[in-house]
């Protein structure tokens, strides 16, 4: 698999099709693993989608006392193995992005696995497939690099270059989920 998930929060229209689609994916047991939330509904209708970054060295796996979080050969970080998970929820607190979910009834953690049965065949995960706003995309790594380059160029063309006083505005403009 040499594609990545690519998020652009600003495009999100908050329809939550990705949540509905997540439930449809094989092995997801009709529970969504991604998030769509309002930044602050009082202030604006801006919503954002959020899903697992598929870290190369995932903090969730590091804090798991049962060693239950495994990474596939493609680099996808899977849900805790059901037989190992002891239900301590360390992963939900260790994850810097607040991704893993926990099911108290079944006593297990579950998380985004990039629709492993789809993405391992290079078919886009359900959330990226249905996202009407393309806030979630499943694209080639090179395409992502291209998108980033374009942004930098556009900023330069319009004479916008980070300076000491406003460099904070130039935060990373992409949010890639790698699994190459």
């Amino acid at each position, binding site marked *: 698999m040499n594609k990545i998930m690519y*998020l*652009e*929060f*600003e*495009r999100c229209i908050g329809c939550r099709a990705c949540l509905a689609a997540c439930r449809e994916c*094989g*092995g*997801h047991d009709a529970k969504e693993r991604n998030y769509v*939330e309002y*930044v602050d509904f009082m*202030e*604006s209708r*801006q919503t*954002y989608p*959020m899903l697992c970054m598929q870290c190369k060295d995932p*903090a969730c796996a*590091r*804090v*798991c*006392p*049962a*060693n239950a979080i495994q990474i596939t050969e493609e680099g996808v970080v*899977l849900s805790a*193995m*059901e*037989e*190992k998970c*002891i*239900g*301590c*929820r*360390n992963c939900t*607190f*260790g*994850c*810097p*992005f*607040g*991704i893993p979910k926990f099911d*108290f*009834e*079944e006593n*297990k953690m579950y998380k985004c*696995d990039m629709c*492993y*049965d789809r993405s391992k065949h290079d078919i886009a995960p359900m959330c990226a497939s249905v996202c009407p706003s393309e*806030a979630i995309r499943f694209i080639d790594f090179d395409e992502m690099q291209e998108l980033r380059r*374009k*942004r930098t160029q*556009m*900023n330069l063309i*319009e004479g*916008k270059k980070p300076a000491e006083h406003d460099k*904070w*505005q*130039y*935060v990373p*403009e*992409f*949010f890639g989920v790698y699994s190459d």
Partner: protein
Amino acid sequence: MKQLERSFYSKTSMYSFFVIVLLFFSMWIGTSQFKHIDMALIGYMISSFIFAIGLTVRMCSWLIRPATHQVIKRSFKNLKTKERKKRNIKSIATTAFENIVLQKFIFKRGLYRGIQHFLIAWGCIGSFAITFGLTFGWMHFDLIDPDTYQIIVMGIPTIIMPAHGIFAEMVYNGLNITALMVLVGVIMAITRRIRSKDVKVTQRVEFDLFPLYLLLAVTGTGLLLTVLYTFLEGWMHPYMSLVHQVTVVVLLIYFPFGKLFHLPIRPLATAVPLNYQETVKVDTRACLKCNTPYSSDDQIEDVKGILGAQAFDLKLADGSYLSDYCPACRRRIRVMKQLNMEAPLGNPYDPVQTRNGIHISGFGKKRQDEFYNKATKSDSKQEERV
């Protein structure tokens, strides 16, 4: 202690050595100074020793992991704390009963899965208990008189039973009963793994299917042995016995290194009520930002400790750590950074503006106003023709 440790290659080898010594000692007692060793079981015995060493090695390497170490350390500390005695006992008792004996959480994943796992789990544990009991000679039967047997455990005579009573039959057939349990459970498990598309998504042959086939082979050959000497007067019995022995040896050696290793680590589940969550779903620590309870102080301390031990720097500029925030706030922090919205922009009376004129996420290209100034009528005409 330190001195002792240094005379070994590693801690692990030290523990392995002591496990072997302990096993030998127990055998020595159980078999009354090696008088009752059943030489037919010698193959099983050797593989059981390998099993013991394998298990020790795996347990040690597991305990060395910073995450496991931290949890175990806190568990021991809490166990030693007198004030927590009530909580400790309750935690251990409920976990042992609900989580391990009844395996309630698996039944909640589905009745089928619950039954299947219950059968395999207790079938295996029972089989292991009987096998180890016999091979290490911890337990043997003595004929007191022609009609009465006595069970000797660790050289101490215990229950006396009539040789042909129901209880005796159950004891003799103990392995057959447990094997049947495993057989049914394993067939259920294999069926599920063949039929369910959902399970197939992340299933791996060597990890998820191999142990099932191995268990099937062990129980199948074992039960066949019983069939052979009960109904076919021992026809092919020696060969079958050898085949069975081979499957058991493979199982014992494989056990500590494959999926079945989840059995010895399951008791760690006690740590959850013991250290972190006295009552399920009741959180005591509030999020630094939104104040909703999301965890307990001890757990967050442990998580920070574990991450720290592995050089994970998740500290923010203001000195707080990401794990000080609830998962929802952590997601939001991430997005606010990305969208450049940590500080409100624009008129506070209006909705928040998420665009700052810098090309960040989304909508890469903004046109200069000149584009529109250029588009006079003649231009647009021209474009039409093109």
